[in-house]
């Protein structure tokens, strides 16, 4: 062990290529606390060896850990090795190139070989340059301070000795505060020990978002040592880090079952810890309409499961703000023209609502689809979009476009009549024309409501079929979110046509798979359950090959037919963490190389 000031010097474990040590500021204090323990352990050993198998109880740790060939192995702790022993956390930090960081950094990384004791009561954050993102910077600094105590196990109070930590945040563009698909989320983090009982950490970044990610990384370099009952920080650090993909998302469907506002916020917290940056909010569907529309309150009144199961404007603002402070964009989706129903019943603007047998008209009960020939429909859409614009102020917007049923539209004589008038056949190309008619008008309303031509996202569907998509959707205006399997030829087709994609291929990224069918019998359509290993190994770059620059990123989706607040956390985590590392780092390695860090992240 190496001690600052040369009080003591002993090597704990020689290992290739670097040597690990602990830095203590106060050798005396360590000495005092260890004496009684050494005595105790000696006694224990004597007792155990001589007679008894009825020794007294004890809650002090009995194990120490040692890094051998990249694995932390467990050994008994005893008086001789107590000084140099590493706790499991400390061992893991130096047992591989990326320590216990998740997601792993993409640039230069050096974690040094030393830990320093730090004082939990003396952690300061300094913001060097002020600007329009001050509120966000302050919030991020505050969050950092609240993250640190979380590494301490419940019911323990680590010693409050050790060095002070000062974190300097150097933000190049303190006025930049908006999300974009083109901004730079990179950062540089340096930690160094100073002479005056201080550890300095400095984060350099182009904007608030990079600074925030740097703080997240820094918080993962603080650990609790149960052998010494102390908080430690990795002392000599250089990390250069920047994500591979600009869009790193998680979709939550709050229409099939309702989730509490608190559970959405804790999801955003966990996303922030994993540097995911987009919370895609599938807020409505045929089953319910929990979004409170100020301009069209009846949609919520008739569409919510109960008056309590709604997201009020205040709730949404709160969530959007919460996300912003954590570098997480809250992206609204209004799915249309299919996947609507409840809430629209008194508008006269839907067809085949609750039609039975449902299997003839839609993919799951209750059925429902907007009636595209009603002019009034587009006024309602504009109002919904305006409500969303007020609350989300999004930089991109998701228009849904999922699973439109021809049979549903075809069940309406009025629609048939309209199509015949337009010389469209009542066949698939004809219904695509009708859908395109809807989409063009909806797009116009969206641009009007949001006040700008923001990028629009649509799900893959018959409308996005790669042979014909360019007849309907402009590749400079639309981003396509892929939910087919990762092997589907559509993906390559769309890439060749020049479309930008977000990957949510169901075979790896649908977190609702497995469990069971909730309609009919047997297992659900995309069974089996997808383990975190498969999520990790699903590489968008491998799928896209030479077109990988057109991949904006990926997104895991939790459709909520069979989950709600009670089970949210374990459906999402740790599997979404696997996605987070894939999208941040796009590592060339597979899950097996990440497992030990994964275990830690959980």
């Amino acid at each position, binding site marked *: 062990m190496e001690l600052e000031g040369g009080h003591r010097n002993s090597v704990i474990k020689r290992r290739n290529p670097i040597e690990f040590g602990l830095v203590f500021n106060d050798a005396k204090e360590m000495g005092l606390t260890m004496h009684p323990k050494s005595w105790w352990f000696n006694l224990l050993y004597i007792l155990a060896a001589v007679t008894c198998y009825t020794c007294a109880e*004890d809650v002090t*740790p009995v194990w120490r850990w040692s890094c051998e060939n990249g694995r932390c192995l467990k050994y008994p702790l005893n008086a001789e090795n107590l000084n140099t022993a590493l706790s499991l956390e400390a061992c893991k930090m130096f047992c591989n190139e990326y320590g216990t960081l998740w997601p792993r950094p993409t640039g230069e990384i050096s974690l040094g070989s030393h830990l320093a004791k730090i004082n939990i009561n003396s952690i300061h954050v300094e913001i060097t340059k002020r600007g329009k993102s001050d509120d966000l910077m302050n919030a991020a600094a505050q969050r950092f301070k609240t993250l640190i105590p979380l590494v301490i196990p419940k019911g323990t109070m680590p010693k409050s000795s050790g060095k002070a930590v000062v974190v300097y945040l150097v933000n190049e563009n303190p006025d930049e505060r908006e999300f974009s698909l083109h901004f730079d989320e990179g950062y540089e983090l340096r930690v160094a020990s100073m002479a005056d009982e201080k550890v300095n950490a400095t984060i350099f970044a182009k904007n608030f978002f990079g600074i925030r990610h740097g703080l997240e990384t820094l918080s993962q370099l603080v650990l609790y040592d149960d052998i010494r009952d102390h908080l430690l920080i990795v002392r000599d650090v250089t990390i250069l880090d920047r994500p591979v993909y600009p869009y790193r998302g998680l979709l939550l469907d709050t229409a*099939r079952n309702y989730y509490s506002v608190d559970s959405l916020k804790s999801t955003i917290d966990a996303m922030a810890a994993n540097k995911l940056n987009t919370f895609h909010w599938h807020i409505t569907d045929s*089953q*319910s309409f929990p979004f409170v529309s100020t301009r069209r309150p009846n949609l919520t009144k008739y569409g919510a*499961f*109960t008056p309590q199961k709604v997201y*009020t404007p205040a709730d949404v603002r709160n969530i959007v703000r919460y996300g912003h402070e954590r570098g997480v964009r809250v992206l609204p989706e209004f799915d249309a023209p299919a996947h609507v129903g409840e809430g629209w019943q008194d508008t006269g603007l839907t067809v085949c609502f609750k039609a039975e047998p449902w299997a003839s008209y839609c993919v799951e009960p209750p059925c429902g689809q907007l009636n595209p020939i009603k002019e009034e429909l587009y006024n309602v859409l504009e109002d919904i979009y305006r409500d969303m614009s007020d609350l989300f102020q999004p930089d991109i917007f998701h228009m849904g476009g999922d699973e439109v049923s021809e049979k549903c539209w075809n069940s309406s004589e009025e629609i048939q009549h309209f199509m015949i008038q337009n010389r469209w056949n009542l066949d698939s190309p004809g219904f695509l024309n009708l859908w395109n008619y809807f989409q063009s008008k909806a797009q116009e309303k969206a641009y009007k409501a949001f006040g700008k031509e923001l990028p629009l996202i649509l799900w893959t569907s018959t409308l996005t079929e790669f042979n014909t998509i360019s007849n309907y959707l402009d590749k400079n205006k639309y981003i396509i979110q892929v939910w087919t399997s990762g092997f589907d030829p559509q993906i390559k087709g769309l890439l060749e046509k020049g479309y930008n994609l977000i990957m949510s291929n169901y075979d790896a990224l649908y977190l609702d798979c497995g469990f069971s069918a909730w*309609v009919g019998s047997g297992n659900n359509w995309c069974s089996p359950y997808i383990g975190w290993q498969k999520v990790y190994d699903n590489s968008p770059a491998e799928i896209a090959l030479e077109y990988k620059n057109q991949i904006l990123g990926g997104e895991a989706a939790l459709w909520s037919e*069979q989950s709600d607040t009670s089970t949210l956390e374990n459906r999402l985590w740790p599997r979404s963490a696997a996605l987070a590392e894939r999208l941040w780092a796009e590592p060339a390695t597979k899950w097996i190389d990440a497992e030990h860090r994964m275990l830690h992240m959980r």
Partner: protein
Amino acid sequence: MFRVTRSATEEGILRHKILHEVSAGLSIFFLVRRPSWVFQCVKDKGCRRQPRVNSTVPEGTVLYDTVDVCRTVCGAQGGLWPRPQSVTLGTHFVKIHPDSLRFDFVDAPTETKELLEEMGGVLTFNLLAECGGTVTEAAELPVAVYVSVKSSDVSLTWLTDEQYTLEVQSKTDELSVRVTAETVYGARHGLETFSQLVTGNRTDPTRTRCGLLAVTGVKIKDHPAYAHRGFLLDTSRNFIPMHDIKRMIDGMATTKLNVFHWHVTDTHSFPLESKRVPQFTRYGAYTPQEVYSTAEVNKLVQYARVRGIRVVIEIDAPAHAGNGWQWGQEHGFGDLAVCVNAEPWRSLCIQPPCGQLNPANSEVYRFLKELYTDIADAIPQPPLLHMGGDEVFMNCWNSSQEIVSYMTSRGYDLSTDGYMRLWGEFQSKVLDIWDDILHEAGVKTKQPVMLWSSELTQIRHIKRYLRKDRYVIEVWEPKESPLLNQLTTLGYRVISIPKNVWYLDHGFWGNTKYANWRRIYEYKLPKNKFVLGGEVAMWTEFVDSQALDGRVWPRTASVAERLWSDPSSSWRTSEPRLQRLRTRLVARGLRPDVINPGWCAQNDMRCT
């Protein structure tokens, strides 16, 4: 009587703008709104939601404010789970309040009264839970709960009579609840059923008020189809904190399961404290905090007893033992276990880490005796021990020179038969140990023990090594396996736990398939006096307290209804009751998985 009719409803939105100045200068306004829906009980279809205003139902139709109130009286069994054997339900509600709830245990033997009082306490607690702890609405009638119990015996065994009758009648001055049972445990089930006839009702727009509605005009006669209705929890692969275990016990009590099969140890860790041999947890627990202390175990046993549940501890042996037994050499007792944490594990055991007890070392029996003595002190009387006996790997024993020499000295050859003889010898020694312990403790008759099905319990071996009057075999082979019937034909008592439908960890690893509540429900046990019942198993390789509730509930309720009611009807007609059970479990503090979209829960039988 509580009802909402069309004419009584009023138009919708009450808007209160409450302005709050927050530091950011934003103003928040709250919308306080009346529900848009009321619920109608449709014959054979369950509860369906209807618009509160302009409803198309005929004048005079009863409409309920919430789906839970509707379910409490809708259908032949209302919101009861598991369904009683015979039931008549009224349609009228009476408002009650826990403060005006009185118990009358006059007609019960003195020995049972302490237990009955605690059981009454659980009932009161459950009623309060329906309103989230606070009932704001006054009672229309006070409640008097009359409990009669015949037997003074408070032990819970396979022979315990759990039947009960329950009558709820509104009189002029009280709501009379009469529970009649042979034993305290039957009475407990009656009280549980009564709690399910009561539902919390929140009707005011702000949801700050909550009343309790009890159904009256009820006659129920009920008894379980099977005596052994178990839930297995493995706390070795991952440690499950005691308060999470208690929450599982709460769920079991709600669904009238009666055996908590505690797979407390395995090769991975040994979290059960032994006062006599502290090394087990010192060397076997994941951390010093991840231990079940003896005091905690005693409390759990009592907690379960009050909820009609017997705690059965399993110490899996001779296989599935490793960490916790690795200190023998160091302390001068030789190898207590062999191939502990050995690699490559695939040749020595079914999953890492490996480990098996060393039957050649007499010290093993000495420490097992100490451990069993601790357990016999802790578990309810008469003690029922599960001796494990799962997945013994010949290669593991074969890897130890000590064991091979021992076998040679005993004249056992190194074939499967030889290992069966060794295993049989181990089994007969540990059974003798258990018998001695119970004899010394004053238990008069020899007690049966439980054992997993294995090579040793195949019909070609079992008669030679295991006596049918002593061993009850827990058969975990797939439901298609003939073993269960073969064993009952030989006269062995069995417990059924078919892994391909009643293992709750399936569907998350390998080629296993997730069984949803419907598949679980459809499995029927053979009707045979040797089939004591069944269990559902939560192995915890991929679960800890974070994901526990959702894996276990509501699926375990399917097993509970199969074992209690053994219904001939299919899952289809049960789904509305299961929805009600789920909201009840949530009220009682569990976090069960959701069954389907909220829309289905408001539109019974439309998502089939």
